[in-house]
């Protein structure tokens, strides 16, 4: 049976993981490659690196990070942030990323979704949608959730899938950072609107929140950062809890 995926997310700046990650096992908690290996061993199903700032002065560091991760981690990983052209996509994919995530760039230039899907296949084009509740629906925000666009999030989801997006990474600006649960009505509306996998993001504080997103919210995967990075729950604990609720999980391999 196809399992639901648990995806830790790293916020990366200049090739380093930011937003304080506290792991005593790690020599260097800011090293994305070390963290990626740890989470892989812990049973993560995929990894996402976001906000990979790619300004000219630190591009080489980012490239090294993506390449080193691909050398040592044998589960799929996505990179997002600063990807504005198909050349940027090609670079990241050739360095070893399995998928690229685009957000503001897709809103500014929707054809980028078509071009990316055509050149590299839909399977590696993830469109990230940041949205906030407005009236009966949800509005798309860009620039890390700072800029309202006036675009209806559900209509936008349909459009990007039509254009070739292979997966949606949906973050609720209302619930993000509060650790009080995902935006279930939005996830459900989004997942029912499209026929590609939806990754739920924003608001994970407990395994119960994740279970809710995967059942009532109809998401295919849940993304979380803080609860893993701060050690509130390990991936193993989350997977055991969700399995216990009857949600299909890839079991974590036994430790040596």
């Amino acid at each position, binding site marked *: 049976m196809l399992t639901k995926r648990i995806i830790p997310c790293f916020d990366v700046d200049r090739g380093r993981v930011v937003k304080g990650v506290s792991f005593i096992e790690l020599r260097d908690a800011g090293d994305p490659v070390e963290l990626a290996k740890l989470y892989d061993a812990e049973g993560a199903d995929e990894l996402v690196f976001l906000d990979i700032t790619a300004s000219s002065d630190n591009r080489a560091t980012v490239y090294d990070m993506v390449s080193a991760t691909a050398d040592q981690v*044998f589960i799929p990983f996505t990179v997002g942030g600063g990807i504005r052209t198909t050349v940027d996509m090609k670079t990241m994919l050739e360095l070893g990323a399995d998928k690229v995530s685009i957000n503001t760039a897709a809103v500014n230039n929707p054809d980028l979704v078509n071009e990316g899907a055509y050149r590299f296949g839909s399977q590696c084009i993830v469109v990230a949608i940041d949205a906030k509740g407005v009236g009966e629906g949800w509005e798309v925000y860009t620039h890390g959730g700072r800029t309202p666009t006036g675009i209806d999030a559900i209509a936008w989801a349909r459009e990007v899938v039509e254009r070739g997006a292979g997966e949606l990474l949906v973050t609720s600006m209302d619930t993000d950072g509060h650790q009080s649960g995902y935006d279930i009505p939005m996830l459900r509306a989004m997942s029912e609107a499209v026929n590609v*996998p939806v990754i739920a993001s924003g608001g994970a504080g407990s395994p119960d929140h994740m279970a809710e997103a995967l059942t009532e919210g109809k998401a295919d995967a849940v993304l979380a950062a803080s609860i893993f990075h701060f050690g509130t729950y390990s991936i193993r604990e989350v997977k055991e809890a969700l399995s216990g609720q009857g949600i299909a999980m*890839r079991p974590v391999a036994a430790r040596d």
Partner: protein
Amino acid sequence: MAANPFLVVVDYDAGNLRSVERALAHVGVDATITADWADLARADGVILPGVGAASDTMAKLGERDLTEPLREYVASGRPFLGVCMGLQALLDHSDEGGGQECLGLLPGNVRHFGFDHLKVPHMGWNQVTWLRDHRITSGIASGSYFYFVHSFYPDPADPDLALGETTYGLTFPSVLARENMVATQFHPEKSGEAGLAIYANFAEWVREAA
């Protein structure tokens, strides 16, 4: 048995080329990425990787004059591994993109999932049940999880070709094997330890056969 067999990964611009090379490196094998038919002719083992569309794959193999060398390689009896699109390309025909003739090295078709009730592509980790013993799956438990990303699935004409099967809306053969050919619909290079074990087993087979 050769200590350093000549293991070739066929280069036709497939997106997962480097990931396959990295997985092989991780299990201690240096692979050569090449589009040169002469390399195929003298290879001890060949891997055909692949993601993307069937038409694209067949067009690129054609442009690089690789279809005949691939057929000749397989006919020679040396170990061959196809991955994802590298599996689908082996069959006679794919329904993708209005229909595409494939290599015809294994009898059968490639069909679209076409579900209304399930998402397509079939993306994520799913179980593979072994239907018989084979050296490529040696030491890997039946029911292990592997990473899949595909909208089309193999439908071989001969049910005995199936080495492993997976259920997503329907049950389909996710590993095919006949004589010197093995092919997986999932991506072993993205399937953690279980996937790396597939490459290690293939490398061992190539070493012994060389």
